[in-house]
């Protein structure tokens, strides 16, 4: 049991973050809170990739004369990190578009509470 917690604790946290994000998106009635939930879901997935590339005792992929070049276990896989840079850009752009939409909605209806919004739209 302790072994599992020690080896996988980061994943447990990420699952928790992912589920809290989904919960926020589905249950919260305020549109801004939905955006926060969406952002948590995205961050959890990005961190999942980063954590998956982690190796105990390994370093960045820059040649270190003190270390052996042949041993792949001494170097991290840089690909997930670079891919997630792109994913972070995507997440930022999504946030930007969602804030723009929220501003339009707020200017028109003066509220971001979903029940009130639906009432005003009738």
């Amino acid at each position, binding site marked *: 049991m302790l072994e599992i917690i020690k080896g996988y604790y980061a994943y447990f946290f990420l699952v928790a973050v992912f589920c809290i994000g989904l919960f926020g998106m589905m249950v919260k009635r305020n549109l801004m809170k939905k955006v926060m939930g969406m952002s948590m879901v995205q961050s959890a997935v990005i961190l999942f990739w980063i954590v998956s590339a982690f190796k105990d005792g390994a370093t960045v992929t820059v040649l270190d004369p003190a270390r052996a070049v042949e041993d792949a276990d001494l170097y991290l896989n840089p690909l997930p990190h670079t891919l997630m840079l792109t994913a972070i850009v995507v997440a930022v752009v999504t946030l930007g578009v969602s804030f723009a*939409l929220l501003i339009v909605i707020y200017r028109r209806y003066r509220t971001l509470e979903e029940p009130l919004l639906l009432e005003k739209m009738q």
Partner: protein
Amino acid sequence: MMTSHIPLLIPATFLLAALLIPLAALLWRRLSWLLAVAATGLCFFYAVKGLAHVTTAGRLHYHLAGWQPPFGIEFVLDPLSAFFSVFVTGVALLALIHAGRVVAHEVSGVDMGFYALAMLLLAGLSGMVVTGDLFNLYVFLEISALASYSLIARGDPRAPLSAFRYLTLGTTGAAFYLLGLAFVYMSVGSLNLADVSHLLPDVGDTRPVLLGLSLMVLGIGLKMALFPLHAWLADAYTHASSAATALIAPIGTKVAAYVLLRLMFFLVDPQYLRDQTPLPAIVGCLGAAGMLWGSIMAMCQKELKRMLAYSSVAQVGYIALGIGLASPLGFIGATLHALNHACMKACLFLVTGNFRVRLGHSTLPRLVDDLRRTMPWSAAAFTTAAISMVGLPPLAGFFSKWYLVLGSIQQSNWVFVAVLVASSLLNAVYFFRVLERLYLTPLAPPDDTDVAAAAATREAPASMLAPTLVLAGALLVLGIFNAWIVSTFINPMIPSRLGW
């Protein structure tokens, strides 16, 4: 020389056009429309040329910056992606020609933004089709999704809220795709689609891969509006401007269906997937449920665009059912239906745009029979597409349904056969309701305001009528030549391990 660059040229031309349009609009506002149509026409030309090359001389690979496939990003035109890029660019070309007047009428003042975003949308969609890299596919998926959120947000006053809902759901779908991809990458160690499918049989523990694949299918199912993940679609399509709907509705969900085909037929062995997981069966059953639910909801709608949106949910169900059969006949049915439905739905939405521009609304109870005299060609195009939707030969819609029924019978899946027949009958109910209003109601009294409006109207202008009629004609041509399309284009794309 140029032929080998076609896989890259299609998305790159769209991206370049998206950058040029804001500059061109500074010179002359109408130039943005001309540039968008020209770029799409050029890409359609490339796609046709690529398809001709793929059918005669084999597939095209383009390695970005010269990096070899497992390390670099690869763009591929194989029979499946060439076929999809032809009809995606073709339908988009007609929708954009049509959009010229609709944009000026419905979202005037932002036409530069509309065309620039439309180009970004098409860059994303065509990029999803041609890319051979699973992470690159995610990037293109987000490009197309972000462009479509912004396109959908302009329309009637409710459009921003429906666009916001689409944004939250669509982003979650993409996040699920990325999460699933992490599992696949952790197990296989490659992101190239061909490389992953090559390495998969050697992976010892396939459970993470199957879990990852299920998450990816879930994410793509959201994008594709697979029942019960379709909640965003109806509002998003109803409240957006007619031009945005006519552009996004026919091809957006089709490209998601293409990704589903890629994942379930090319990434993994479909036979293995069917033996190990209930995933194909689930996708097929959800498709069948969506066919019934979408049709029933369509019957209850009073607004033409909303009815067509629910009908899209039903039609996506047909494609999902074909994918779920995981057999050669199901594959043919799904691919052919993607093509047919793109043309049918585009035609129907273009006619809705014609009604909106001329009458100012597209509410069913307010459509009067005078339209058949004042707008005869639009009404005729609608009728052709509606009959094709119901599935009467020799129009295109019949043949894809025929392959789906054959595939279901081959697997003795009588429930699917019954659902296919029932859904076609429901299609008949909601489309004949519109046709009845257009053709069969007795003449209304002339003092009614709607009748007066209809009598005063004229047929849509040529730039809107021509694309509508081309699509209606295409339905007849696609129906008549369906055997040739299947044998020339679709048979070569069926993966060999499906045992065809």
